[in-house]
């Protein structure tokens, strides 16, 4: 009639990967029983919260899609508390070109956007450790697996100012939606600029160059996973693919 899958992370937290009930058996208490039973099993493992997806090692969604209003009501009825909204974005990039004002920002700031290489690797990893320690592992793992080609850096002389990670389906965020988004799917993510160099257009230049790089590798759509920056990416043409209510249940 229904099922629920949760993924434990950080020792004492869990993420609800999916809860689904057969359409013919909804509104009969099946979903609530699944939440109650899941909570009991997780409490026995000293877990104290269940998120609506965020934190799972693999996930379908990182929150409750707002295009499913009954789902939000269901989770609220079961004492989940929602505290923010985030987005997955997408864009057809087959004809993408970087807006001129973005290029001007690159010139004005005297920066170069380039592929990571052996010479810049150490500085880039130091940059990650210093400014984005939570992302360091993702970069390291991707570099070990795929070499330097998936990382773009923003650099002024010897100083790394920002970086972004590229990926392509099936092994990319949103890759599980390739039946819907198409097989030529790319994604950019964990894009960051050092705090002292923000608001100068460097991040947008990184996003634009990453989009162009994915286009040049044959991607026709580009996915931006789990972001709050809808308007910011919108400057490059990205649009909301899905909006999510994010929250958790304390157990």
């Amino acid at each position: 009639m229904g099922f629920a899958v949760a993924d434990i992370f950080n020792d004492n937290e869990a993420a609800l990967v999916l809860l689904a009930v057969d359409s013919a058996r909804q509104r009969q208490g099946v979903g609530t029983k699944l939440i109650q039973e899941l909570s009991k099993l997780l409490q026995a493992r000293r877990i104290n919260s269940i998120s609506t997806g965020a934190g799972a090692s693999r996930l379908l969604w990182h929150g409750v899609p707002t295009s499913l209003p009954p789902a939000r009501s269901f989770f609220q009825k079961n004492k989940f508390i929602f505290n923010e909204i985030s987005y997955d974005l997408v864009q057809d990039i087959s004809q993408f070109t970087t807006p001129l004002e973005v290029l001007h920002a690159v010139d004005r700031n005297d920066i170069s956007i380039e592929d990571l290489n052996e010479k810049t690797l150490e500085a880039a990893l130091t940059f990650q450790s210093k400014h984005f320690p939570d992302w360091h592992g993702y970069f390291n793992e991707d570099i070990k697996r795929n070499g330097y080609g998936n990382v773009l850096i923003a650099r002024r002389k010897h100083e790394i100012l920002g970086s972004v990670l590229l990926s392509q389906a099936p092994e990319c965020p949103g890759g599980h939606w390739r039946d819907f988004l198409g097989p030529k799917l790319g994604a950019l993510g964990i894009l960051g600029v050092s705090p002292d160099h923000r608001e100068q257009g460097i991040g947008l230049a990184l996003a634009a160059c990453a989009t162009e790089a994915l286009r040049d590798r044959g991607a026709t759509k580009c996915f931006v996973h789990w972001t709050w920056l809808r308007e910011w990416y919108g400057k490059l043409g990205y649009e909301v693919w899905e909006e999510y209510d994010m929250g958790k249940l304390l157990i």
Partner: protein
Amino acid sequence: MLAVMSLYLKGSRAMETRQISTVDSDQIFRIWESNLSNKWPISKEVLISALGVSSPSENYVKIGV
């Protein structure tokens, strides 16, 4: 080994919950199709993989009614 627990609805009909695994893949996909596949088409293999149903990791807790 399946952990089977009996739970009871307000009425008299019982619902059982149990751990799910790859042998339940067809049923899991059928439930997805009954609800969500119109908006989010996905193959059975990709869905089962994304859910971690076939993962041996003990971090996954997977139950069905």
